[in-house]
C-alpha cells in the first residue's frame, strides 16, 4: 500500500536478498544467522541437559505423568514474548543469556514428555528378559532401553530444536539479535521489501532445520529405517495434537 503494493514488495525483497553487501556487512544477514544459530544451539543444549536425564528418570519409574501434562499445558499458555521481556528486565538485562534461558524454558516440555513416553513405553517383557540375561541397570539403560526409546527422544529433541529456531526470531522484538531483527527493522521502517526478505530467511531457516534434523534423527535411529519423507500412510493420518510436544500422554 504505502510502499507500493505486494508486487513491488516481492521485487524489493528480491533486490534486498540479491545484494551481497546485505549478507556480508557487519550486522548483516550472515552475522545475524551465526548469532541466531548460536543462541538456538545453546538453548537446545541447556534444555537437553536438563530435560533428557529427568525424562529418563521419570519414564523408568513411570511416575509424574500428571505433572508433565500440567507443565506442557502451562508452557502453551505462557507467551514466549512475555518470558523474553520479563527476563530482559531482570538483572540479566539485554543479554544473550536471557534469550537462551527463555528459549530453553520452552524447549524443556517437548523433550521431557517425549523422553518420558519413550522410556515408559519400553516393553516390560523386554526389560525382564534383559534382567534375566544378567544385565546390570546401567547395561539395561544403554543397551536395551535407550535404543528402544531413541526414536521418541530424537523426536522430542527435534521438535524442541525447530521450535527454538523459530521462536529465537522473537528475541528481536525485545532488542535481541538473530534473523528476526531484519523483520523488526522492516516493520519499523514500513519497508515491505525488507519485511518479506526477513520472512523468507526466517522461514527458510526453520524449514531447513526441520528437514536436516528429520534426516539426522532417522539416520541415528537404530532398527529398520522408517524414512519420514515417504507419503503419509493412511494409518498414521489424522493424528491429533494433544500436547505441545505432539505426543499423547
Amino acid at each position, binding site marked *: 500500500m504505502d510502499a507500493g503494493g505486494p508486487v513491488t514488495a516481492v521485487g524489493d525483497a528480491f533486490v534486498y536478498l540479491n545484494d551481497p553487501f546485505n549478507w556480508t556487512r557487519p550486522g548483516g544477514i550472515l552475522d545475524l544467522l551465526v548469532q541466531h544459530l548460536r543462541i538456538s544451539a545453546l538453548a537446545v543444549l541447556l534444555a537437553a541437559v536438563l530435560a533428557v536425564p529427568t525424562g529418563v528418570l521419570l519414564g523408568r519409574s513411570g511416575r509424574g505423568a500428571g505433572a508433565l501434562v500440567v507443565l506442557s499445558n502451562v508452557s502453551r499458555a505462557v507467551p514466549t514474548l512475555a518470558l523474553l521481556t520479563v527476563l530482559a528486565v531482570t538483572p540479566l538485562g539485554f543479554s544473550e543469556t536471557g534469550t537462551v534461558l527463555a528459549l530453553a524454558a520452552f524447549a524443556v516440555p517437548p523433550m521431557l514428555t517425549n523422553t518420558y513416553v519413550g522410556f515408559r513405553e519400553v516393553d516390560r517383557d523386554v526389560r525382564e528378559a534383559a534382567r534375566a540375561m544378567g544385565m546390570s541397570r546401567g547395561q539395561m539403560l544403554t543397551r536395551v532401553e535407550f535404543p528402544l526409546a531413541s526414536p521418541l527422544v530424537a523426536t522430542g529433541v527435534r521438535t524442541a530444536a525447530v521450535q527454538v529456531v523459530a521462536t529465537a526470531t522473537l528475541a528481536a522484538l525485545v532488542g535481541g539479535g538473530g534473523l528476526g531483527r531484519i523483520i523488526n527493522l522492516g516493520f519499523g521502517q514500513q519497508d*515491505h521489501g525488507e519485511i518479506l526478505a526477513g520472512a523468507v530467511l526466517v522461514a527458510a531457516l526453520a524449514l531447513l532445520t526441520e528437514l536436516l534434523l528429520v534426516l539426522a534423527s532417522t539416520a541415528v535411529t537404530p532398527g529398520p529405517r522408517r524414512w519420514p519423507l515417504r507419503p503419509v500412510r493412511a494409518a498414521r493420518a489424522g493424528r491429533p495434537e494433544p500436547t505441545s510436544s505432539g505426543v499423547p500422554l
Partner: protein
Amino acid sequence: MASLGALSATSDPGTPVLAADEAPNPWFDPSYVTDNWDTIVGHLGQHVRLTVGAVLLGTLVALPLALLARRTRLLAGPVLGLSSVVYTIPSLALFAFLAPFTGALSPVTVLVGLTVYTLVILVRNFLAGLQGVPDDVREAARGMGYGPARLFLRVDLPLALPAFMAGLRIATVSTVALVTVGVITGNGGLGQLIIGGLNANFYRAEIVTGAVGCVLLAVVADVLLAGLQRLFTPWTRAAR
C-alpha cells in the same frame, strides 16, 4: 527530600548518581492497574476479539477440510503434510509474509496469521475425531435412511465432539499466547502492554500486567471451553 537523597548519593561512590536510577520499579503495582484500567481493558478487548475471530474462522475452514480429507485418503496426506509445514514457519515470519498484502499496521494481518495457525491444529484434531467414528455406526445410520447432513449432525458430530473440543481448547490457548506477537503490527492485544512497558524505560508493572493477563486469559478460555464440553457431552459424565 529528593535533594537530600541526591546529595547522599553523590557522597557515596557505590550508589547510582542519577535520581532516575533509584526510582522504584516494582514487579507489580495495583495502582498501575487501576490508573490505566481503560487502556488495559482496551487491549484485552482486542486480544479477545483476535482470539475468538481466529478460532471461529479456523473452525469454519477446518471442518470442510477435515470432512474432505476423511472422504479421500489421497487428500489426507497433503492436507496434513502442508499443515505441519505451516506450523514450522515462525509466527513473526508468517505475519511478515502477510504484511505486504494485508497491511503492515493492520489487525487483519494478525487475524489471518492466527487463523492459519489454528487451522493446523484444528484440521488435525477434527480429522482424528471424524476417523474415530466407527464405520459400523455410520453404516447403520445410513441404513436407517440418514442423509449426509443428518448423519453428520446426529452421528458424526456427537461421537467426534470430545476430539473436536480438545482441538478447540489447544487452538484457543495457543492463539491467546500467539496474539502477543501481533505487537509487530501494533495489534498485539495485551502484548502491547508487554512491549509498551519495555519501551517505557523497562516499566516492570506494565510488563507483568500484560504477561499475567495473557496467562489468565488463556486459563479462563480453557476453563470456559472445558465447561462447554461438559455441557455438550452429558453422556460422558453419566458413564462415570
